[in-house]
């Protein structure tokens, strides 16, 4: 499996990356961990005459926590997330999600930025970032801009990012309370049949706030405002959970593929979301 030839660039700063993107236009793509792009290039489904490696850009690395604000550099790997004690304390749902992505070797290479930016409906981080109401930080020839994760995904592999822009970081407020990332997959390394990211804040035995997003059940991640709203004010009992699941099932549009027919996916979505809500509530 040999990809088409390409020129390789390893700029040492973001100006260099942007200059290359300007120069080569849609013949250029950035590569982070490469575990989505390289397989596509090997299959010759992606043709990238100019490959721009981000590995030497130090400003894209590192996890910073300031109060409750968490910022993840785009080149932070899943392994970095799993190993970061401070992050595990303030936003444990990140670690819980990363541990369910691919396998150890892939997690050493795979980055949060690649996972978020690519727009692959199977990726886990987009749904999580929508659940957390994260902000995606982009840089391009006209400077920087911020896009809410809930507004970033337009269709499979189609996002708000322009071809000459690069995702530099993702930030969010760690809200505390209960959380769960629940994923059904056929085997290690597979994408989700269904996955759910849930955060719940409790007050006086009732749900005060809830945020729910699901993965790989539409051509984009699905953050369902109605599903979260169905829990708010309730005791998170069986009826409230059923109402939240019903609301989510209204918002997803799964398609049949090798993970099963539509009816099966909707069934699994309900099971997984019920588990995620139950676990998040138990931690709230």
């Amino acid at each position, binding site marked *: 499996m040999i990809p088409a*030839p*390409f020129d390789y660039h390893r700029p040492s700063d973001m100006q260099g990356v942007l200059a290359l993107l300007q120069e080569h236009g849609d013949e250029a793509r950035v590569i982070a961990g*490469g*575990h989505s792009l390289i397989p596509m290039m090997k299959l010759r489904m992606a043709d990238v005459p100019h*490959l721009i490696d981000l590995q030497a850009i130090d400003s894209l690395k590192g996890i910073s926590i300031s109060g409750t604000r968490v910022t993840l550099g785009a080149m932070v790997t899943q392994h970095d997330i799993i190993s970061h004690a401070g992050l595990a304390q303030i936003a444990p749902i990140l670690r819980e999600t990363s541990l369910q992505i*691919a396998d*150890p070797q892939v997690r050493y*290479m795979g980055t949060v930025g690649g996972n978020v930016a690519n727009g692959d409906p199977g990726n886990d981080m987009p749904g999580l970032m929508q659940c957390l109401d994260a902000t995606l930080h982009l840089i391009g020839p006209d400077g920087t801009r911020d896009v809410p994760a809930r507004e970033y995904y337009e269709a499979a592999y189609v996002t708000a990012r322009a071809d000459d822009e690069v995702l530099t970081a993702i930030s969010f407020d760690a809200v505390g309370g209960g959380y769960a990332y629940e994923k059904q997959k056929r085997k*290690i390394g597979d994408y989700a049949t269904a996955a759910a990211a849930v955060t719940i804040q409790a007050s006086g035995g009732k749900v005060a706030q809830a945020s729910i997003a699901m993965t790989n059940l539409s051509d984009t991640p699905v953050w369902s405002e109605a599903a979260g709203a169905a829990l708010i004010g309730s005791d998170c009992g069986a009826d409230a959970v059923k109402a939240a699941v019903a609301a989510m099932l209204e918002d997803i549009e799964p398609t049949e593929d090798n993970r099963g027919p539509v009816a099966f996916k909707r069934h699994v979505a309900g099971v997984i979301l019920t588990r995620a809500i139950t676990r998040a509530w138990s931690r709230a």
Partner: protein
Amino acid sequence: MSNKMHITLTVNGEEHEFLAEPRELLIYTLRERLNITGPHIGCETSHCGACTVTLNGKSVKACTMFIAQANGAQVTTIEGIGSPDNLHVLQKSFREHHGLQCGYCTPGMITRASKLLEENPNPTEEEVRFGMAGNMCRCTGYQNIVKSILAAAGELNAAKEAAE
């Protein structure tokens, strides 16, 4: 199209310099250019882990890395972990506990296991299974692989204690 790059790669402590097309995959560099054939090609699609090497301190699948990305890196393969005359504790343990049958996955298994034990010297059985989830074996059913790694961890820890 000639766009060869000058590559420097340190493998098992030995520095290699050569010209290569950026698209060359690390596994081919190792096996065909440098004749380091311990890392195997299994699926070539980043699933099976037979090509696992340690690159700059990370376990990576050498079938999913271009040589251009690895330029300047330090790589350790199974050849750098032990030799026929001086087997690593993990290699001895795999032999002792029948951690292999056909042996095709074994270099990747042991290379990955060595990194796993470096990061977590006292893993539980569950942690071993989770940490080895990127390596597939079609013979053993994994039982004896897990047994081999746990036994090696015990031996390495005993040796460390004895040294202290």
